[in-house]
């Protein structure tokens, strides 16, 4: 039986900007509280850790189309509400910048510096044709599946689904 550690595990399911910010706010805070943190990215959440620059290659017409429409990258994410063709997201980013709030990109980099583990889900990567080699930003952990997540969650005091 695995014991409970001072550990936080988060499933990042959503690829919305606001959800991502909430997740990384908790992850960086937990890391600064001395907790071990892992974040498991699946479905639209994978968009958060996709690289912002360059092309993402994939095989097959449908996967190519999916990755074209669902490009992702921390700088391309939109608000879950009031996006208003990008105007709402632009305004929210401006409001945050005005009060010196870090951008999502900076939050992800900060989390990585603090030792937060970022793990992409292997199944959704295969289904959606996202290749581990060229789709993600730097220093992402290798792909893992549900058993890995559940094992992490089993020994965590806190598990969240965002």
């Amino acid at each position, binding site marked *: 039986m695995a014991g409970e550690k001072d550990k936080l595990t988060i499933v990042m399911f959503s690829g919305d900007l606001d959800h991502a910010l909430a997740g990384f706010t*908790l992850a*960086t805070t937990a*890391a*600064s*509280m001395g907790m071990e943190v892992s974040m498991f990215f699946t479905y639209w959440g994978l968009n958060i850790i996709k690289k912002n620059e360059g092309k993402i290659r994939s095989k097959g017409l449908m996967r190519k189309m999916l990755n074209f429409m669902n490009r992702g990258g921390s700088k391309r994410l939109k608000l879950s509400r009031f996006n208003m063709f990008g105007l709402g997201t632009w305004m929210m980013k401006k409001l945050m910048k005005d009060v*010196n709030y870090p951008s999502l990109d900076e939050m992800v980099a900060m989390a990585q510096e603090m030792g937060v583990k970022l793990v992409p889900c292997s199944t959704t990567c295969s289904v959606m044709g996202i290749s581990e080699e060229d789709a993600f930003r730097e220093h992402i952990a290798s792909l893992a599946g549900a058993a890995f997540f559940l094992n992490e969650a089993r020994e965590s005091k806190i598990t969240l689904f965002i």
Partner: protein
Amino acid sequence: MKADKTLDCVGLYCPMPIVKTSEKFKELKPGEILEVIADDKGIKKDMPAWCQTTGHECLGIEEEDGEIKVYVKKTH
């Protein structure tokens, strides 16, 4: 209260004051006191909670003209 080091977090919002405090704590020796100056009201609840989890000691909170000063002692 007399502090060994000061951390200016004025204009920063959650989670930045806590994140910066934990970074700054690496420079402190056990027994030293850090003064954190902030204007985000959340710090009044957040710093004692951070101390409870990390085992450091929150010595006191002073508030004047919207500026909040928190004194934290590094215990280990």
